[in-house]
């Protein structure tokens, strides 16, 4: 797995590179600003990019803009965005073009190395990784999509973990239920959200996007 890191804080950048290299991962380049990052993407053809949201010059959402541009230049590039805090707008901006191979995590999750590496691998494999904090905020908000209100509390838990990008087995472990039970809940969620079984899109992702879409329409 070839990795490019874009992070303007030098110490954190080196710390990340050190951590990943110690795990035997191939960090091919690191960059401190959006331009350097895009150049590295062009030059090294990475599989995954780890991108900080706030980068020079204005330290607002340069990282998101750069990540979207990198995906445009190199379709299929997996991007894991790291953020100092949860900002719904960043999540929707990022996921607007589809959620495959995308992740959005709070920076401090990196310290939980096992979970961070799992998220990184998931994203690199075309999955999603959405920070539990993001998901929690989505659920806390009264949704503009009335269909979401039909979900039972348990189904919401399952959807939350799906949104984080976990698979059925992992969800079953977290909720201390059988895999079969999780499967049943997910079928029920798809039903309640009017997603036909023959829907060809990735329904798991679609279910998550329903929240993000609703949020986008509301704003």
């Amino acid at each position, binding site marked *: 797995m070839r990795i490019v890191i874009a992070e*303007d*804080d030098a*110490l*954190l950048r080196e*710390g*990340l590179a*050190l*951590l990943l290299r*110690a*795990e035997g991962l191939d960090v091919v380049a690191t960059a401190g600003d959006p331009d350097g990052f895009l150049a590295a993407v062009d030059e090294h053809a990475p599989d995954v990019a780890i991108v900080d949201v*706030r980068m020079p010059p204005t*330290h607002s959402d340069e990282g998101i803009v750069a990540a979207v541009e990198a995906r445009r230049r190199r379709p299929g590039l997996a991007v894991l965005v790291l953020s*100092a*805090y949860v900002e719904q707008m960043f999540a929707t901006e990022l996921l607007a073009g589809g959620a495959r191979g995308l992740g959005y995590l709070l*920076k*401090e999750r*990196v*310290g*939980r*190395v096992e979970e*961070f590496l799992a998220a990184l691998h998931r994203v690199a494999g075309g999955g999603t990784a959405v920070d539990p904090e993001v998901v929690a905020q989505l659920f806390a908000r009264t949704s503009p999509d009335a269909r979401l209100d039909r979900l039972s509390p348990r189904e919401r838990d399952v959807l939350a973990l799906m949104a984080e990008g976990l698979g059925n087995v992992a969800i079953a472990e977290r909720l201390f239920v059988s895999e079969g039970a999780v499967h049943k809940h997910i079928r029920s969620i798809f039903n309640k959200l009017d997603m036909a079984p023959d829907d060809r899109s990735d329904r798991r992702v679609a279910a998550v996007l329903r929240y993000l879409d609703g949020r986008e329409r509301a704003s």
Partner: protein
Amino acid sequence: MEATKIRRLAGEARRSTLRALRDLLGGFGTAALALGVLLWLVVVAATSLIGIGLPLLPSALRALHAVADLERARLSRRGEQVLSPGPLPDRWRAARADPATRRELSWLAGHATGGLLLGALAIQLPVWAVRDGTFALWWRLIPADQATPGLGLWTVDDWPGVATVTLMGLCWAVLTVGLTPAMARLQAARGRRLLAPGPETDLSLRIAELTATRAAALDAHATELRRIERSLHDGTQNRLVATTVLLGAARRMLTRDPAEAEVLLERAQSSAEQALAELRAVARGILPPVLADRGLAGALSGLAATCAVPCRMEVDMPGRCAASVESTAYFVVAEALTNIAKHSAATHAGVEVRSRDARLRLRITDDGVGGADEAGGSGLIGIRRRIEALDGGLTVTSPPGGPTTLEVELPCGS
């Protein structure tokens, strides 16, 4: 017990008399100006009748507004604020219809006569009191036909007459103490009544002005909060994230390579220490603790002591100002001294701080190369924003070749 009471009463009387005399003297000054403007207006008005004075009318009206503004400022310093009714017309036709201008004219006539008289009397009364009170000491030294009391009513040639004059001096002194406060009130009353905005005045201009400065204050406040948020997220938080990253890496390294894990732990610790240092810097940036501990004077002398350029500090500040004002003053001086150390090549810097009449004035000078320019990104813009947010003012004088002077005025706000 009785003695202290009398002493206290005497002290109060002396203070109120001195205050009244100062007010009357100030009023005498504006009254003299008012008399000049009144005479000028009469001349211009008279010559306007035959056409010659017409071009001079606007300037005469501007003089009227100017002297009225002087009196407003004087009255505002001495007591309750007298608001300006806003810009007044200097065209005759508009001015004639303008009630505020008409009231200014009425004030001008009264102040130039009655106000002047009261002021003159206030000067005369203490003079007579001293002259007649001390008459006994020097009446023999002057030619006999000039030995008269202050009013010059009769010629004194014997001791009973001297005693009478001394008694008169005592009367003048009693009158000075007894009358001047009322005279000062009387002299100010006309201005307070006629120069304040009348019921018809549209105060929306003043409101707009206040709204703008308030918006600037909120804006500066928001900028300040953004700065703090940034230093927390991009500085402190990053250090802490780096710490957790290094700790996470160290934990995984522990079994594989304990020596390497030790190196990582060492780095994690120094990263956490950096986080602490940055947190301290951020907290200090919000409100320097030294300001709360030692007051503005103490905090500023600390700044002067650490300044790279030798700095002379003079602080004359009897009371304290609002915390926001003091912290702004502190930052302005800190920023200015940093600028001096960085750009001016100065060998000496000076800071003067004075608070008078609810205003805090700062004067920061250096003998450097000058040429400080707000457009040059020298931090002057930041200084100006912080000052204007508090409704204060900044004047920068910095010709090429120096010297540079920053003059700051802030309302104390307490």
